[in-house]
């Protein structure tokens, strides 16, 4: 297959994926740093490069509501947002998931107010981790582009039928220009295939009620059905990641392992920090510290068993959390990993750092230091540490 090599920012890459996906409907509201995605996409609409009905609305709450309406009418539906926009969608996110509408959203990670801040952290996505959406993180523009294409297939698969969000790190990926390999329109179109919606509220031949009240008698059963769909999403993500590899040359799974096979210490993180960590690992290995990285790609559903198995051999674990859970016990990622290890009967020293909140820079040296710290500590620590904190 002939790939085109271009220079693109994360936002441009996601907009390009949306152009190739050519959704029936997009309903969106602008918000930094995701604005560009829909801005670029709106020019595609204007230039007739897509057949999309672009609905401009007055808020993100309305954007997601319009997406729910459109998806319930059987249209392939997409949107993009960030931070306050995502959390303003909060109540409709749960509805989209419970109605099993495979809406795909680009979410550019940005800190949540307050204090008000426009830069990257993962607080927005983590605030919606229980909404029932599939959550896929990207390390760079290429992954953002690839993940958008795969997310359509994952979300729309019959045994899944759940909405999915693909995230990039605000400004770091969204506005950083990188090398991007794009695939021919026809190949992407072939890969995503025709959309066969789970139901269609506008089908007059078969009238249905969508969103009816379910009280004490069947609410529990509805949630169980969603739970099973989320389990199926795990399988779908693997299957489609493999198929994507066969067609486009890069295979995707639940997480990426980097030099973990002989690693004494493994660091777990999400998003662009994985790139920084890879550079730190190269340098540390020169110093004789055997370290490796696990970059989680799929956060919802959470690959607990697989992660526990991957972390089984190492001597110590570092978990970097780019958001706060405010439970004073662990960040959102570390909480999940601790639970996964407990279920697998694995107890290991673990250091959990909160870092990069509100776009605070993380340097190679910071990551080298967290590896050095865990290599000297054999007991681990339950204390949540703040990385790069100004103490005085």
């Amino acid at each position, binding site marked *: 297959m002939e790939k085109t090599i271009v220079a693109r920012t994360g936002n441009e890459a996601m907009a390009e994926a949306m152009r190739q996906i050519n959704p029936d409907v997009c309903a969106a509201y602008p918000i930094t740093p995701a604005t560009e995605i829909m801005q670029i996409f709106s020019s595609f609409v204007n230039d007739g490069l897509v057949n999309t009905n672009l609905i401009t609305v007055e808020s993100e709450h309305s954007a997601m509501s319009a997406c729910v309406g459109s998806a319930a009418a059987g249209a392939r539906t997409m949107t993009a947002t960030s931070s306050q926009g995502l959390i303003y969608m909060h109540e409709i996110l749960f509805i989209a998931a419970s*109605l099993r509408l495979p809406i795909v959203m680009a979410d550019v990670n940005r800190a949540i107010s307050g204090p008000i801040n426009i830069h990257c952290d993962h607080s927005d996505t983590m605030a919606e981790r229980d909404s029932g959406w599939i959550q896929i993180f990207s390390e760079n523009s290429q992954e953002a582009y690839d993940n958008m294409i795969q997310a359509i297939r994952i979300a729309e698969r019959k045994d899944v*039928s759940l909405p999915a969000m693909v995230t990039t790190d605000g400004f770091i990926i969204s506005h950083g220009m990188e090398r991007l390999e794009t695939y021919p329109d026809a190949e992407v179109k072939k890969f995503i295939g025709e959309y066969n919606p*789970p139901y269609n509220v506008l089908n007059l031949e078969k009238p249905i009620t969508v969103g009816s009240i379910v009280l004490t008698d069947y609410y529990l*059963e509805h949630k169980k059905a969603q739970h099973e769909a989320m389990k199926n999403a795990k399988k779908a993500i693997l299957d489609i990641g493999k198929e994507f590899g066969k067609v486009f040359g890069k295979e995707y799974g639940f997480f990426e392992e980097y030099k973990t096979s002989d690693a004494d210490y493994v660091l777990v993180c999400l998003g662009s920090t994985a790139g920084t960590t890879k550079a730190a690992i190269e340098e540390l290995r020169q110093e004789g510290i055997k370290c490796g990285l696990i970059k989680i790609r799929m956060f919802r559903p959470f690959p607990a068993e697989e992660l526990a198995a991957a972390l089984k051999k190492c001597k110590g674990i570092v978990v970097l959390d780019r958001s706060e859970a405010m439970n004073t016990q662990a960040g959102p990622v570390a909480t999940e990993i601790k639970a996964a290890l407990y279920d697998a009967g694995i107890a290991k020293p673990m250091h959990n750092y909160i870092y990069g909140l509100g776009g605070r820079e993380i340097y190679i040296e910071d990551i080298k230091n967290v590896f050095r710290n865990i290599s000297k500590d054999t007991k681990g620590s339950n204390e949540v540490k703040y990385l790069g904190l100004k103490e005085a």
Partner: protein
Amino acid sequence: MSTKPNIKGWKDLNVGGVVESGTSEHFHTGDWRSKVPVWQEKNCIQCMNCWAFCPDHAIKVKDGKRAEYDYAYCKGCGVCAEECPKTTIAINAVKKDDPNAKIDSFDGAKNPTFAEKAAILMVSLKDAKEKFGVK
């Protein structure tokens, strides 16, 4: 007539919990009723207001004319009595002041003047059963 959904467990639910049309036929709102509307055919002018305003399908139509209630679908909301042009304003006043206490005094069977004017009136379920033979 729609088919009654056969939902036993979570696996029987439609994706997203969507419901096929016409299933309200299987839902007997009459179970909730504490007051019952009574129709007096001799006073009815066939305006069909009650049929148009009934939020369920309690009012049956036969040969283009209003027929007897289907009480299985009547939750006793009283919209029909409210909208009936042959009901006196007295019943509205009493309903607003005290919906239960004085119902007997506006009972069509006991109040000949009222009975003359009312096509539809709301009475308690107990009274209806006893005096009008409604089940």
